[in-house]
C-alpha cells in the first residue's frame, strides 16, 4: 500500500450518528420499564447533547457514553451485530462504498477511525472489508459497561494524533494519505493528511473546506 485513506464513520460512511446507535440499544432493553426509561432519558437529553457537542467532541463523549452504563457486554455485542444487519447496513452511503473500492484499487489502505464504539463498528468494518479499523471501547467491569470510554479516546484532536502515529508506524507518507469526515470536530484529523475531503460537511467544516480548497463530496 502506498498510503492510507482514513474514514470517519458516522455521517461520512453511514447516515447515522452515535445517538442513533444508542437509541437502538435503548429501544432493545429487555424490560418495558428499562426501555421506557432509557428512551425517555435519551429524548430528554437531546438538547443537552447538542450543546455538549459544541463544547467539543471529547466532552460530548464523556457525557454521552454514560448512557451505556449497566448494559452487559454480551448484549452489547449481540445488539451491535443485529443493529448492523437490521439498520446500519441500510444507512450506508453506496457512493462512499464505491469510492472506497476505487481508493483500494488505487493502492490506498482502507482504515476506519471512528468515535463510535467497537461493538457497533466491528460488523461494519467486516462488511466493508477494510484493512484496519479503530473505534472507542467501552470500559467493562464485571461484564457490564461502566459508561466510560477506555482511553485514549478517539475524538477531535485525538483522532489526528492517532492518524499521525498510525501512518508513521505503517511507513505511510502523511502527505499522500487521504481522510474523509463530515464534522468540524474532525478538522484536526483532516488537517493531518495531505488529501483531506469533506463529506456531507456541516456548516463549520464546509467553511473550512472552502477556505482551504478541500474537495467537498455530497454522498448518498
Amino acid at each position: 500500500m502506498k498510503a492510507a485513506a482514513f474514514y470517519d464513520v458516522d455521517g461520512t460512511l453511514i447516515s447515522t450518528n452515535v445517538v442513533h446507535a444508542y437509541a437502538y440499544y435503548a429501544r432493545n432493553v429487555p424490560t418495558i420499564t428499562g426501555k421506557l426509561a432509557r428512551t425517555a432519558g435519551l429524548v430528554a437529553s437531546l438538547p443537552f447533547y447538542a450543546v455538549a457537542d459544541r463544547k467539543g467532541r471529547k466532552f460530548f463523549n464523556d457525557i454521552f457514553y454514560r448512557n451505556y452504563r449497566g448494559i452487559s457486554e454480551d448484549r452489547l455485542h449481540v445488539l451491535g451485530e443485529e443493529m448492523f444487519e437490521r439498520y446500519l447496513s441500510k444507512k450506508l452511503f453506496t457512493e462512499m462504498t464505491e469510492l472506497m473500492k476505487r481508493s483500494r484499487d488505487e493502492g490506498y489502505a482502507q482504515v476506519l477511525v471512528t468515535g463510535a464504539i467497537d461493538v457497533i463498528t466491528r460488523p461494519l468494518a467486516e462488511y466493508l472489508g477494510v484493512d484496519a479499523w479503530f473505534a472507542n471501547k467501552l470500559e467493562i467491569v464485571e461484564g457490564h459497561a461502566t459508561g466510560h470510554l477506555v482511553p485514549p479516546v478517539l475524538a477531535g484532536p485525538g483522532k489526528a494524533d492517532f492518524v499521525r502515529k498510525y501512518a508513521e508506524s505503517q511507513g505511510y507518507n502523511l502527505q499522500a494519505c487521504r481522510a474523509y469526515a463530515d464534522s468540524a470536530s474532525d478538522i484536526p484529523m483532516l488537517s493531518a493528511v495531505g488529501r483531506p475531503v469533506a463529506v456531507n460537511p456541516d456548516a463549520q467544516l464546509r467553511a473550512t473546506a472552502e477556505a482551504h480548497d478541500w474537495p467537498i463530496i455530497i454522498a448518498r
Partner: protein
Amino acid sequence: MARPTPRITRDPNIEFIDDKSSPKVVFYGTRFQEVNLPRGSRVIYPNAPMEPIGNLRAAVRYALNHPHNTDPLFAQLKPGMKLTIAIDDISMPLPPMVAPDVRQVVLEEVLKMCADYGVDDIHMIIAICLHRRMTGPEIKAMVGRQIYDQYYPDRLYNHDAEDPDGIVEIGETKHGHKVRLNKRAVESDLLVYVNLNLVPMNGGHKSVAVGLCDYKSVSEHHNSRTLHKCHSYMDPREHKNQLAKIMNRQGALVDEKLNVFHIETTINTRMFGGPLSFLNRPERTWSEFDWAKFQASNAALWKMPEAMRRKVFEQIRAPYGVIAVEAGKTEPTHEKILETSFKQYAVPVKGQADVLVMGLSFISPYNVNAILNPILVQIMTLGYYFNFYRNNPIVRKDGVIIVFHPCHEEFTKDHHPSYVEFYHRILGITKDPDAMADFEKEFAENPDYIHMYRHGNAYHPVHPFYMWYWGNAGREWTGKVIVVGAEHERVPAQLGWESARTFEDALEMARTYTNKSQPEVTLFHAPPIMVADVEV
C-alpha cells in the same frame, strides 16, 4: 458630446482606425471596456447573422426523411428495437439559447416518429464525455418540460465515462487508437445523435467518438503531443489538425461497428438580444441611443459586485436562429453543416498582425453557470480566440496577444475541483505541458475527484490538463501574452503571462517586445464568434 461620424468601409468585416473612428467596445469579464486603438489598427468583425430557417420543425422533419447516404429515420425504426439518443451537452451554444433549444425541437420530432413506429425502448444520454454532469434544471431547459418529465432521470441521463460497468471497448483503429464507448449506446440497434454546432470543430466524428467515450479513449488524442499539431482546431482538414485526424479514425471505427444516425444543426451569430442587441453590430453602426444604452448598462455593471454581475449574465439567453439542419451518415451530414457554418462564421482577412487584441467575456464552453477561472481564461485566449482561424494565425509568429480580462483568482469548486489543484500546485511546479503526464495520471486516479465527476457536477479530474494542452499551439506560436486589467498580477504570472494596468501600457510593452515603434495591431472583435480565413 456627439460621437464622431462613423467611417463606412467597403468590407463590412474590416475597419481601419482613423481619427474619426469611434472607440471599440470589448468584453472585460462581466463588464466592458472602451478601447482607443492606435490609428491604422485593424478591427475584424463577425458576419451579420444569417436569416434563420422559417419553419424549424418542417426543416427537422425534412432532414429526418431525406438523410444523406442512409435510409430515412422512419425506415430504420422497428417495434421492439433498442434505441439510444445521444445529445450534445450544455457547453454549446454560448450563452444557452432561448427556449426552445434546437435540441428540444429535434428530440420532439424524433420521439414523435418513434412513437408512431412503436419504438419505446428509448434512452437519452447527454454526451458529456469528461465534462461535468448537467443538472436536472439544466437538462429540463435543454430538452423541454414534456420530455424531461417523461424520461428523466431513468431514461434521460448523463453519460458516465468512469462507470466500470457502463463502458465497452469496440476495438482499435488501424493506428492502434482504442475506442471505448457507452455500453447502452453500443448495444443499441440504432444510435441517433442530436448535435448543435456552434463552432466548426463541433460535430462530425467528434460527437459519438468523443461525447460517449471514456478517459482511455479520449486520451488517444487529448494529449500534449497531439495538440501541438493543430493549426487550427477550427480547420477540419486533417493535415492541419491532428486532433481531427485521430477523432476521424476513431469515428470511422464507430460507424463501422454501430448504426449511427446523425442529426446536426448549426446556428447564426445572433448572440445578443433585447436591450443588448446592438452588441451584435460594429460600433460604427450604433446610434446615439445605442451608445447611451451601452454607457448606462456598463456603468451599472461597474457599480455592481462581481457576484451580482455574474447572476445578471447567467440569466442571458441568446436568441440564436437555426440556419441548417442535416441528417444521415456522419461524414456527409457534417460536411453539409460545415458548408453553412463557414458561410456564417468565415471572415476573409488579409495579412497577419504583430499584436492581436481581444476582450474575453464571462463565459466559455466549460463554465456555464460557473466562474471563468484562470485556467479557462488561458484556454479562451490561447485555445479558442487564437484558434479562430484557418490557413494562418491572425497574429504573426512570436507576435503579442493583448487580452482584456480581470483574471479573478476564483473557482467554482463543485464544478472545477481539480482545476484548483492544477492551478495552485501543478502550475507552480511546471508550465511545460510535455512534463505533465505523471501529474495527469495522478489526477486521473484521484478517487475523490472521480467521485465528484460521477456523482456531483464536477469536470473530470484531468480536464484542466486538457485545457492546458489545448493552449499548446497558441503558446508555441505567440511570443507574449499581456493581460490588461488583471486584479492580481500573480494570476497572469501563474499562467506564464504578463500584466499591464492599461491598454496603453500593454501596447508599449508590445512595441518593446516586437521592436517596432508602430506594430500592426488587430482587434478580434468577438463575441459574436467568427473564423478568420487569413491570407498572408
